[in-house]
């Protein structure tokens, strides 16, 4: 039991541990880059604190209040265009980095959203977030931003359809079981 518990702790913390050692190394080798690393890390930390806790609270509320049948109706297998639009809307209205979308996607799956719509949400979260678009517009111009946006919109749906085709029944079951256990 003892070794099992410590194994689990190690499994959860190894990335942070490895990253901290690497970061310390960088700080020792190169002061300037080390300082920049700390700057960027603090910025990301701020970004995380600004969006993750409220996202998790909203997810918790969704989990206890939205009945499974309702989620299936809105974003489940038979939800059609409504489900796709809702997924795009949710992803675009989001904030924060893409990894913040993973737990959101997991709760939606648990509640009965289809894999296709969840992948669409991940796609929208990564490419059509509204606050990010403003920034892109300012830096790269309207033509670049619009061209990318239009192609990515098509791509998000295309990728979701392709994934639906390539995922086996076994994969789906594994993912769903993981979501149910969360």
């Amino acid at each position, binding site marked *: 039991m003892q070794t099992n518990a410590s194994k689990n702790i190690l499994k959860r*913390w*190894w*990335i*942070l*541990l490895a*990253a901290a050692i*690497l*970061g310390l190394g*960088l700080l020792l080798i190169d002061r300037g*880059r080390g300082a*920049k*690393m700390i700057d*960027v890390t603090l910025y*990301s*930390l701020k*970004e*995380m*604190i*600004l969006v993750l*806790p*409220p996202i*998790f*609270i*909203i*997810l*918790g*509320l969704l989990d*206890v*209040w939205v009945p499974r049948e309702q989620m299936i109706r809105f974003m489940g297998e038979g939800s059609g265009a409504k489900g796709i639009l809702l997924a795009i809307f949710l992803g675009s209205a989001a*904030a*924060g*980095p*893409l*990894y913040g979308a*993973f*737990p959101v*996607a*997991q709760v939606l799956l648990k509640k009965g959203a289809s894999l296709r719509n969840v992948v669409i949400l*991940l*796609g929208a979260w*990564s*490419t059509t977030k509204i*606050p990010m678009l403003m920034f*892109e517009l*300012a*830096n*790269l111009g309207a033509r*670049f931003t619009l*061209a*990318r946006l239009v*192609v*990515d919109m098509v*791509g998000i749906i295309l*990728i979701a359809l392709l*994934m639906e085709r390539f*995922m086996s029944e076994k994969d789906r079951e*594994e*993912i769903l079981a*993981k979501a149910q256990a*969360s």
Partner: protein
Amino acid sequence: MITGIVFYGLAIVLLGLSFFKDRRKTLAALKKAGKSLVGILPQFLGIIVVVGILLAVLDPQTINRILGKSSGVLGVLLASVVGSITLIPGFIAFPTAALLLKGGAGYMQMGAFVSTLMMVGIVTLPAEIGFFNRRMALLRNSLAYGFSLLVALVIGLVMAL
């Protein structure tokens, strides 16, 4: 900052409504939120530090050196590889891309860079596998990668019009 205020505001309003309707359910929701947040925290903190290290090493000057003025297919491939490793927040990614354009990189290369930056994440792959499964994470990232090359092509064509 504004997004933070909007998200916290929304969470607080919803929490208030929920609490008004059913105290027990609200507490259960908060407990769930806390548990999942604490559960993923070590992994997310790890990602944040790794991104910090990568961005300190891959500053605009270094990226510029890697991409240089190498245009054409090689430039697109290099840009997409750099974009895939790192998960750069928009506030750094877009100014960097603008800087690279000024430095002589082509629009096609920047299309590949920006698109892979946003959609493909090697650093976050372990987390993605953890939330879903290996096949789904690998499939999503490879499809997004292939698609980003198409985005590059279209942007290159559109910007040349």
